[in-house]
């Protein structure tokens, strides 16, 4: 709050009218200012608090609204999981193409029924009814898997890397033991993976004598695994054909490119940025 001393000082510095009155004026002004400020802030707070209130009212009336909201939240949280699942599923789909496609087709054919393999219903040879897109699509995949079993199995093998082995060194360090093996499997350099790990985890670390990575901070295997997953999504899998058979190369002017070995597509990827990292732990004395 405005201490009277400050006011008198200010007035003495700036003007020289009767101190008492001026101090009062200053006080008043300041208090007004502060009140105003407070009011503004309060309004903001009120607005923030009022906003949920009517929403709550609506929710009380409309239960459906609430449900929708909740679903949204869940969606956002699981977004990453879904991305991964999508990646995996697309891998599996081909695998189960023969089985899954055939199984899915009758389920979706509520209107357009008929057995594809037996050639009944809409699949009859002289049937004129137009077949909708989805059954046609499932038919395509089912046939593809039927005729080319090799193709289906080769394209579907889900991408697997050995699970990261995490050991605890002392209390504050984590050793990521099999990074060399994982990097070899992903065909990426250790440095690239390491810098990504450090950037994502917001820490630093070093490589020890037997090429193991020492990370500062406590990390569980699960957490490292999550970061590796994001790394694979971003820097290993081909965005066009989702094959992990890719190569990372430094193209012209400091850009990194991913070249896919199975479909030949080439795309640039973002360089790894550390971004802001806060001061953690003790400050150096001279740096201030």
């Amino acid at each position, binding site marked *: 709050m405005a201490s009277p001393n400050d006011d008198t000082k200010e007035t003495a510095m700036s003007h020289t009218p009767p101190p008492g009155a001026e101090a009062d004026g200053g006080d008043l002004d300041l208090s007004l200012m502060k009140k105003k400020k407070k009011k503004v*802030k309060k309004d903001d*707070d009120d607005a923030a608090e009022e906003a949920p209130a009517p929403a709550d009212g609506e929710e009380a009336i409309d239960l459906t609204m609430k449900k929708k909201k909740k679903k949204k939240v869940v969606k956002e*949280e699981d977004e990453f999981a879904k991305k991964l699942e999508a990646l995996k599923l697309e891998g599996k789909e081909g695998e189960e193409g023969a089985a899954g496609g055939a199984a899915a087709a009758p389920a979706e054919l509520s209107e357009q029924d008929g057995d594809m393999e037996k050639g009944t219903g809409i699949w009859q040879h002289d049937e004129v009814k137009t077949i909708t897109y989805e059954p046609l699509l499932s038919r395509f995949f089912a046939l593809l898997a039927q005729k080319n079993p090799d193709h289906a199995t080769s394209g579907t093998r889900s991408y697997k890397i050995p699970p990261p082995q995490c050991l605890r060194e002392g209390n504050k360090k984590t050793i990521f033991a099999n990074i060399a093996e994982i990097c070899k499997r992903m065909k990426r350099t250790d440095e690239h993976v390491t810098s990504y790990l450090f950037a*994502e985890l917001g820490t630093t670390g070093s490589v020890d004598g037997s090429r193991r990575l020492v990370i500062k901070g406590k990390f569980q295997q699960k957490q490292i695994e999550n970061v590796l997953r994001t790394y694979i999504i971003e820097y290993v899998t081909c965005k066009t054909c989702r094959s992990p058979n890719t190569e990372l190369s430094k193209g012209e002017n400091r850009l990194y490119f991913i070249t896919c070995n199975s479909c030949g597509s080439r795309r640039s990827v973002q360089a790894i940025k550390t971004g*802001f990292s*806060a001061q*953690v732990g003790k400050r150096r004395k001279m740096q201030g």
Partner: protein
Amino acid sequence: MSIENLKSYDPFAEADDDSGQTKQTQEYIHIRIQQRNGRKTLTTVQGIPAKFDHKKILKVVKKDFACNGTIISDTESKGMGEVIQLQGDQRLKIKEFLTNKEEGLGLDEKTIKVHGF
């Protein structure tokens, strides 16, 4: 007609505006996490558009999440812009806040990148 059409907007000005907008949308909001001593963590939010009042955001967020936090100024963060730093793992909550249209900022989810484990 065609001349009028040409007059109706300045193609170069529009292009400039467009590029500015795409730049803005391409700049991500980064939500990061950092480990501190023990089980403690910090959450940093970098790149909230300047049109929002960071102080007010922090004020609301601190109350909502029941955590403390600060704004790290541009000079302190070494040119990375103003960064909101919160105590604890607030990544999901702050993301929800940034994307919420009614109570939050209503930003597009695509512009937000959540880092960390």
